[in-house]
């Protein structure tokens, strides 16, 4: 049962997992699945892994979670190492270089896009630019600005910033709300 999930989970994005676990294998119900997606988004870690782990646990306990995760990442592991080898071997070829030269700016754009999306999500709780420019969330604004300054001044590293911003937000809530 879990082994079958591994195959289904392998290439999956959320909709694919959905078809597999609900329609094909009837492991969980649709409303449970919606909970899975919500939880996966609000807990740390890659969403796909979170979803696979959560479903695995529901279906078969801790063993299920481990099996689901392993099934989920094994195809990635094989494909990525194969691609890395090809890249090392043929990376200098004109065609490959051209493709990478086209993709590099694309990745920069996608990172920028994620940045803007997270900016509005943090301040206005919306992924898109808000239709009405209401006041941004005060605590979030302070935390964001403090984090930015500390990063720019190289006072805080990545992990200090993540942990610190969570704690700062907690602390501020006692004073402001």
């Amino acid at each position: 049962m879990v082994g079958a999930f591994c195959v289904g989970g392998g290439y999956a994005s959320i909709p694919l997992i959905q078809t597999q676990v609900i329609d094909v294998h009837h492991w969980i119900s649709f409303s449970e699945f919606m909970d899975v997606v919500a939880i996966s988004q609000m807990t740390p870690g890659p969403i796909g892994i979170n979803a696979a782990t959560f479903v695995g646990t529901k279906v078969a306990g801790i063993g299920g979670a481990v099996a689901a995760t392993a099934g989920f990442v094994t195809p990635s592991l094989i494909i990525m190492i194969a691609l890395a080898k090809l890249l090392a071997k043929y990376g200098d070829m004109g065609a490959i270089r051209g493709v990478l030269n086209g993709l590099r700016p694309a990745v920069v754009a996608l990172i920028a896009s994620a940045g803007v999306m997270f900016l509005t999500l943090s301040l206005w709780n919306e992924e898109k630019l808000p239709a009405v420019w209401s006041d941004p969330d005060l605590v979030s604004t302070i935390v964001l600005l403090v984090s930015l300054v500390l990063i720019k001044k190289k006072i805080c590293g990545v992990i200090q910033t993540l942990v610190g911003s969570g704690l700062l937000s907690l602390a501020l809530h006692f004073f402001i709300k």
Partner: protein
Amino acid sequence: MNNSVVIDKKFYWELFKSTFLISAFTVGGGFVIIPLLKAKYVDHYKWMSDKEALDLVSVAQSAPGVVAVNAAIIIGYRLAGYTGAAVTLLATVLPPLITLTVISYFYDAFAHNYYVQILLRGMQCGATALILDVGINLLQKELKKKLLLPCLIIFGTFIANYFFQVNIMYLILIDAVIGYLWLQDEKYS
């Protein structure tokens, strides 16, 4: 493999520790974790160059699977071969595995806890600041080269992705074709 990096026990520990912590404290999907990995590997440890990191992320994004996991694997492999890939993979999947297994037993209490929500919201703001910092730095560097087509790719991809929610897979495909057709010249590397 990268010769400028000393591959010893300390390196593996740093690789594991930083990847584990980033995965453990980052809420959100692929393009949230990737800038943070970039900030750590490239800007802090200087294990690879901007260009190399972006190349690897491009490959990770083009392949099936979760982009954050793909990126962790290929970066680990580039840095330290099979062991490197195993270390980064393990460090990426362990934190969600642990937290989710625990949370799935009492997720109602977790999801509706006021303090948990505030903590996560704050960490999201910290992640936002980190992504913006990485994003702005990369943008500045790309735009400074003053090459028309790469700049057009940046703006086109950004607008299509952010404003029109065009699927990333299509964008990657289009940009790869553009690169293949017009960006093979040495000056674009």
